[in-house]
């Protein structure tokens, strides 16, 4: 193998090649978006929001940017747990607004991660009173409802052979031939064990670890009928590879949109109401901007637009009447006809029991076999 000693400049050639892929890309991008890579000074026309993906209508964001001159910088997470872990670490510094679910508000507040909300700066009169002052945050000290959803069941009545009205019906249906092996359960411990606790007359927020484990036994026996615990794809319910699914109303609505024969129900005796909330992070660098954004988001027209974009109902009172008449399956957006808010309970994460829920869920998923 010969080596040409006269080949100078190989370094510059190599570095040019190495940079070739990225430098033009970076240069082109910075030219196209001036300021995209500049470190922006905090507190001067900025707003950092940490949220679920795709959770703000692009139309609303643009309108807000025009009105206030500030474009909210939205970063995303995939679970409440990630949100908690982030805020509880240096990675959480710099966020102004976060969108935690009702289950985690208390933990975030207890750890001192949230600012108390100054109610004099915001007008909550337009919101549905049923959604305010709930167990998970009495007096709405730390949170303002953004939108809400329910835990329920979407199913194919033909395959299941009847209607489902309680969680007992759900479990019984899952064992039937033709349904067994085509069931979907949640991957969150309290959502799977909760139903059994409710059937036993217990409260999922006050159950002891032993009670949780005992209730889990039924789920472990049921697990062999379960096909999936992963995020539900509406296509799977629509095309029949899953005929009985525990899921939220948004996914159910998408499935029914694809296959109108499916039905949605919020089973008794209880089920879950979860509320996704605006919350302000402690020591938020852009506090005033945060309140300005929240005031904007709370306007009725904005909430209406959000509902249509994300498919879950915003907390606005009287929202149903305000939606366009041709909105498909509008009832399901609100959890079905005649939803009784008194039969709904929100979960609050409790450090004493969350480990047990997790452990039992892991055992349930293991019992489902692989």
């Amino acid at each position, binding site marked *: 193998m010969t080596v040409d000693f006269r080949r100078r400049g190989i370094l510059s050639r190599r570095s040019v090649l190495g940079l070739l892929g990225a430098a033009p890309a970076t240069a082109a991008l910075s030219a196209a978006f001036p300021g995209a890579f500049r470190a922006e000074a905090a507190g001067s026309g900025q707003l950092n929001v940490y949220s679920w993906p795709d959770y703000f209508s692009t139309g609303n964001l643009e309108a807000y940017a025009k009105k206030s001159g500030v474009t909210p910088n939205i970063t995303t997470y995939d679970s409440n747990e990630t949100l908690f872990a982030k805020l*509880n670490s240096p990675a959480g510094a710099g966020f102004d607004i976060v969108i935690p679910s009702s289950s985690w508000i208390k*933990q975030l507040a207890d750890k001192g991660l949230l600012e108390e909300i100054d109610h004099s700066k915001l007008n909550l009169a337009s919101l549905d009173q049923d959604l305010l002052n709930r167990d998970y945050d009495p007096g709405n000290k730390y949170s303002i409802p953004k939108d809400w959803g329910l835990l329920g069941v979407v199913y194919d009545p033909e395959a299941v052979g009847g209607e489902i009205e309680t969680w007992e019906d759900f479990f019984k249906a899952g064992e039937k031939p033709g349904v067994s092996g085509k069931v979907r359960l949640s991957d969150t411990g309290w959502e799977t064990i909760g139903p059994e606790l409710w059937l036993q007359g217990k409260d999922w927020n006050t159950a002891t670890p032993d009670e949780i484990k005992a209730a889990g036994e039924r789920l472990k026996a049921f697990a062999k009928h379960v*096909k999936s*615990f*992963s995020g539900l794809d509406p*296509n799977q319910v629509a*095309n*029949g590879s899953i005929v009985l699914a525990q899921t939220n109303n948004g996914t159910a609505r998408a499935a029914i949109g694809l296959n109108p024969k499916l039905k949605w129900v919020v089973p008794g005796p209880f089920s879950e109401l979860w509320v996704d909330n605006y919350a302000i992070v402690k020591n938020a660098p852009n506090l005033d901007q945060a309140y300005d954004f929240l005031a904007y988001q709370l306007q009725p027209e904005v909430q209406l637009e959000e509902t249509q974009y994300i498919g879950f109902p915003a907390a606005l009172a009287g929202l149903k009447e305000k939606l366009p008449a041709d909105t498909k399956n509008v009832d399901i957006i609100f959890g079905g006809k005649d939803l009784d808010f008194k039969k709904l309970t929100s979960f609050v994460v409790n450090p004493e029991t*969350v480990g047990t829920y997790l452990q039992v869920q892991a*055992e349930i998923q293991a019992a489902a076999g692989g």
Partner: protein
Amino acid sequence: MPAVETIGPRPSGGLSAGGVAPRAADHFIAAVPTLWLAIFFLTPLGFTVVFSFGRSTFGGVELGFTLDNYATALSGFYGVTFVRTVIFAASASALCLAAAYPVAYFIARHTARRRTLAALLILIPYFSSFLIRVMALHMLMSRGGASEIVLNALHLHAGPLDILDTQTAVFIGMVYAYLPIAIVPLFVVLDRIPRPLIEASRDLGASRFKTFLFVTLPLSRPGIATAVLLTAVPMLGEMVIPKLLGGSRGVLMGQAIASQYLQSQNYPLGSAMAVLVLLAVAVIVLALARLTKGFDEVVA
């Protein structure tokens, strides 16, 4: 191409006939990566080990010394989970290698230009987002999706396709994700097997099959070992594919450790589990290295 007797450098890298003692430049070159990794890898890992002996305060750690976390991590459920994960990774890795070997062999047999094209075709899909490809795989394998249509048309399958959310789908996904990673080391080693050896074997009367079995395969052993290392070990921590394609049934180590950190906020337990997994994997890797006499070395 060097002659057959001197394949590559002499195996021992020690003081050669040139008689070189370590010089400043050598130490500098070795120091740069060591320093970088000491700061950004070893120190954080050290923290993890320290935390594994602490007590959990739901999102925090109270430093101390307790073996409780290790006791829990070694307990029935997690012990079984670990064994199950090892079996899973070993099978997925074996499947991946079985699929990869013929491809690597095919590429290695061609001459330079065709070979570049052949290798490129294998590597191009790798440059797109992994998650999107897995999501697309999910779409393709679902009922009413493209796979069902094609398989029905070819009369290889009748009726709706129900492989999604099964172990089969997970294995398909694993092979899909790790195939290029397995092909590369296999190709590198197969490529370095000198043609004259193969020809000599054929001239002595061995059939193609026998030549493959007794010459090629043994010589490619280091490549196989490297391929196993680069596939089976990451597979032990795989979380995404079993969740997206397998319906999250069964629990694997990757998920178990991550959920200790993220959901239970139990850093000490998660750390203890991680340390145990590390130790176990280190043992397995050392055993593998022993068995195949090092990775990626062509035995002269």
